[in-house]
């Protein structure tokens, strides 16, 4: 089973929830940090990294001696990563989305493939579980290509069997990076807080992810602050509240020291065991509906 821990709003506690769930998870698991712009799950899980490598994306390289400046590549490219200006061809490598269209369309075979480094992928272990992380190269503006490369590793790496559960720490927001991270999941857990900001972004996240047609549930962090509007929204939108994490100084203190809060007190560890069960129930209920 693949579970994504996502949120509209940043800073609601995705990594805190992911680290806690990963730590107390009782089945074979790989924890994946797909918040590649600022990965921080490793600060809590403290994995030992066994392998690290660079990830690349195909970009075009033009041999101008073969080019007759027909503009077919330039007209095809939706991102203006390749441009024909009179008798000059320019490639703006950093704007390329790697579709390969220009290479395919060139009638003179003047375009070959070069590559752009997207970032680094790290593989490791914590406890007896797997750990996978993407880290975007500083200066790289697109994170979805790296997110996809990290997800590909789940099927490439032989150490992860089909029975290994996958827990994804997704990037915040509701645009391409967040959607790329959650799109292959079986269940989406949205972490939010009971404030107007939390509610606004939860609504956006719900709207963005509904078309993916996956079971979704909500974890309310910092429960006790703000107001009840988020509970009313969840009820109306039929989003089950899977857990409420209280607003407590001790939790913030533990987190600031890099501790996993599920390990911080018996009450917290129980809360996350209950959350695990609620996630399994959410996934199972969906299966029943599909099979009925």
């Amino acid at each position, binding site marked *: 089973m693949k579970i994504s821990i996502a949120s509209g709003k940043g800073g609601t506690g995705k990594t805190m929830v992911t680290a806690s769930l990963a730590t107390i998870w009782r089945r074979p698991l790989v924890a994946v940090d797909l918040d590649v712009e600022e990965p921080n799950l490793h600060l809590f899980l403290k994995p030992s990294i066994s392998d690290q490598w660079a990830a690349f994306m195909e970009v075009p390289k033009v041999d101008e001696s073969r080019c007759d400046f027909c503009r077919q590549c330039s007209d095809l*490219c939706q991102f*203006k990563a390749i441009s024909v*200006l*009179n008798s000059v061809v*320019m490639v*703006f490598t950093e*704007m390329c989305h790697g579709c390969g269209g220009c290479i395919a369309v060139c009638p003179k075979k003047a375009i070959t493939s070069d590559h752009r480094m997207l970032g680094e992928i790290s593989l490791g272990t914590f406890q007896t579980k797997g750990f996978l992380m993407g880290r975007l190269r500083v200066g790289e503006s697109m994170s979805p290509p790296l997110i996809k490369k990290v997800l590909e590793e789940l099927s490439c790496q032989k150490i992860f069997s089909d029975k290994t559960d996958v827990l994804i720490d997704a990037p915040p927001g509701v645009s391409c990076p967040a959607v790329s991270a959650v799109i292959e999941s079986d269940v989406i857990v949205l972490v939010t807080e009971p404030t107007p900001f939390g509610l606004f972004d939860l609504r956006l996240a719900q709207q963005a992810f509904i078309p993916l047609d996956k079971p979704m549930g909500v974890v309310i962090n910092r429960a006790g602050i703000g107001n009840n509007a988020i509970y009313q929204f969840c009820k109306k939108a039929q989003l089950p509240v899977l857990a409420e994490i209280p607003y407590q100084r001790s939790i913030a203190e533990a987190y600031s020291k890099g501790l996993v809060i599920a390990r911080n007190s018996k009450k917290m560890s129980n809360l996350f065991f209950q959350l695990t069960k609620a996630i399994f129930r959410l996934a199972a209920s969906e299966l029943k509906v599909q099979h009925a």
Partner: protein
Amino acid sequence: MTKIAISSEGPTLLDQVDPRFGRAAGFIIADPEDMTSTYIDNGASQARAQGAGIQAAETVARHDVSAVLTGYVGPKAFQALSAAGIKVAQDFGNISVKEAIERYNQGNIAWVKLSQTKGPRR
């Protein structure tokens, strides 16, 4: 005959210079000697999520101009214009296209050098 392109908010010489290059409403392609001009719409560039400046550079390059007068040109569009051999002058805000051409005819134009374009540090 040398032609120049001026980013414009509308189709006539009396319209204001559009301070944006890539996302300008359109371009007036003018002959500065006899003040004849044609207008090209830049709507396709305006609608782009990215690459508007490069698209606009392609558009004006196709009209065989020797210079662009505008408010501001981004670093990628500047690279593209330079590659096409087109000179660029900036800071033509708050005046009409006609006044911009007159200023060009007076010859007191500061052409942009590559080092002056802002862009991400590499």
